């Protein structure tokens, strides 16, 4: 609500929620804590390492979803590029005898091209139609994977996937793989922070905030969204590659709608506004099944309820709470 009196006055300078108000001390302590937390899995045993690796893979994938979301379209079929990355890298290796890294790179490239072509067609659609089509496309990918039994193994999937290796060095232990996954997870967060500080990221933000206005300032909504869609899909495919090479087994069921829903859940609960939301969401939700100890239904009911409650009362997600707390401390 603005009145004629208040509207004209310049607003007091609000400090960015991420500028830590207590200065260097908090920054140093925070960084140290983060480093310790990141290093802890190596000391905590196989089970913790396993969860940590899965969390890192999810961080990469959900950052991809976030990238697409920040350009103004939310994909309800994010499991599709993950599946394409997973199956692609494995099949390029096994069918063409390529090295694991080369196969991975190739599958990312193919994923980018597919995303570009698909995006060029479907990003013209209004948000709601886009959602339906991405959902349908993900289902289609799953059905094709199920049906192309001779290539993909159908419902039985592909087992015995060899680990990633560069030169002679193989990522065949959880300790080694965690290092890789951690680096990539941090890189994906860093990438997002970097991108949204640059003109391209700001252009995507503009396009998401007010497409008609952005278009009239010379930013093509379609082109910006295609770029975001390609980037988001490549990140997802990267997550797929990691999944395949870590777990050693893939099947179409791991890339069903449940997966797409899980990614959306992580993004929403972590927070769609903050750039750190995907990371928070992945870190919170990946280990959560363990707390439910196999009561899968209760767990899913919890997810469903959490989604509804967060959207209703905390649209900024968990990262949003942190941001609000920091902002409140910033005010005198």
């Amino acid at each position, binding site marked *: 609500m603005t009145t004629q009196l208040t509207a004209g006055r310049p607003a007091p300078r609000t400090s960015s929620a991420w500028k830590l108000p207590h200065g260097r001390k908090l920054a140093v302590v925070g960084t140290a804590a983060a480093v310790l937390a990141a290093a802890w899995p190596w000391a905590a045993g196989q089970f913790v390492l396993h969860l940590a690796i899965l969390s890192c893979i999810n961080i990469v994938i959900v950052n991809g979803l976030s990238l697409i979301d920040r350009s103004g379209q939310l994909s*309800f079929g994010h499991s599709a590029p993950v599946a394409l990355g997973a199956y692609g890298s494995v099949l390029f290796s096994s069918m063409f005898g390529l090295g694991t890294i080369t196969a991975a790179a190739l599958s990312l490239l193919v994923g980018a091209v597919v995303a570009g072509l698909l995006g060029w067609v479907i990003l013209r659609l209004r948000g*709601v139609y886009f959602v339906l089509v991405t959902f349908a496309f993900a289902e*289609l990918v799953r*059905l094709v994977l199920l*049906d192309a039994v001779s290539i993909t193994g159908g419902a039985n999937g592909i087992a015995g996937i060899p680990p990633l290796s560069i030169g002679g060095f193989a990522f065949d232990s959880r300790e080694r793989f965690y290092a890789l996954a951690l680096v990539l997870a941090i890189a994906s967060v860093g990438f997002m922070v970097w991108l949204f500080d640059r003109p391209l990221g700001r252009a995507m933000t503009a396009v998401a905030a007010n497409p008609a206005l952005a278009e009239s300032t010379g930013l093509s909504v379609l082109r910006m969204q295609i770029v975001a869609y390609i980037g988001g899909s490549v990140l997802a495919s990267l997550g797929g590659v990691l999944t395949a090479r870590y777990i050693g087994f893939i099947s179409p069921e791991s890339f069903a709608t449940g997966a797409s829903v899980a990614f959306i859940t992580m993004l929403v609960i972590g927070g769609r506004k903050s750039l750190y939301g995907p990371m928070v969401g992945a870190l919170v939700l990946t280990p959560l099944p363990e707390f439910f100890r196999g009561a899968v*239904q209760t767990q899913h*009911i919890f997810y*469903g309820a959490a989604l509804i409650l967060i959207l209703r009362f905390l649209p900024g997600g968990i990262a949003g709470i942190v941001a609000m707390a920091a902002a409140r401390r910033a005010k005198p």
Partner: protein
Amino acid sequence: MDWNLLIGQATVNGLIVGLLYLLMAVGFTLVFGVMRMVNFAHGEFYMLGAFAAYFFTTKLALPFLAAVALSFVAAIVVGSLLEWFILKPFRKDELNGMIVTIGLALILQNVALMAFGPDPVSLPSIASGATTILGVTVANSRVYVVGFAVLVLLLLYAFLRHSRAGRGLRAVVEDSETAAIQGVRARLYYPLGFGIGVGLAAIGGALMAPLFSVSPFMGQTPLLKAFMVVILGGLGSIPGAALAGLCLGLLESYSTLFLSTSTADMLIFLLVMVGMLAFPRGLIGRGEA
């Protein structure tokens, strides 16, 4: 190979499936039209309708038609209550509304899993034997189901056309701005629209329950089909959804004559995409662009 027989059989199958898609899609597009909400939980209401029919026929030994009717009523009530208590803050909020319905779907499916377990159950057959219509043999149970479905659709048509509530609902769906101007009490129509929309899904589930097996996972595919149908028919267009539903059913049936299932699915997906780009307002041109 008697092609005529095959085509005839495929046509009948296609129409039956098409009717199912029609029921799902009309309900789905009704919900979208009234509340601008893509209801990801729509498939779960289909599933709950099937379980309700199962419960009423096996546990309460009610006749099938009564079970279907009761399932419909139950779905309207449950749907309206859910809308009022959970979905109300998200009316008109397209994106967040969608995500909330995902949460709802998660809850509904897993409640069903907890209550009924994952294994499929089946209903006793509602009719035995088969009839031959125009040279095509159809199981009697299917004939009855089709008959009931057509009856439901006629009742729906009559409701939307001739009752005051129905006309108001149509007005809100087809042109909410004008409806608001003309004083249609849109707020009452939200729970009603949602209730009837998911009620139609429940009828679909209840009707199809004797023909296919019933499990908590059965809602996924009908949901996807509903999506494809409304993409083709145009979101918010009830006649578009009806036409597209039948077309999709027939298309699927015919294509499985010649192609493998996944190739057929791919082809249909491509056709739907092409259709969507060529007819942004749906086949009949009255949906949202």
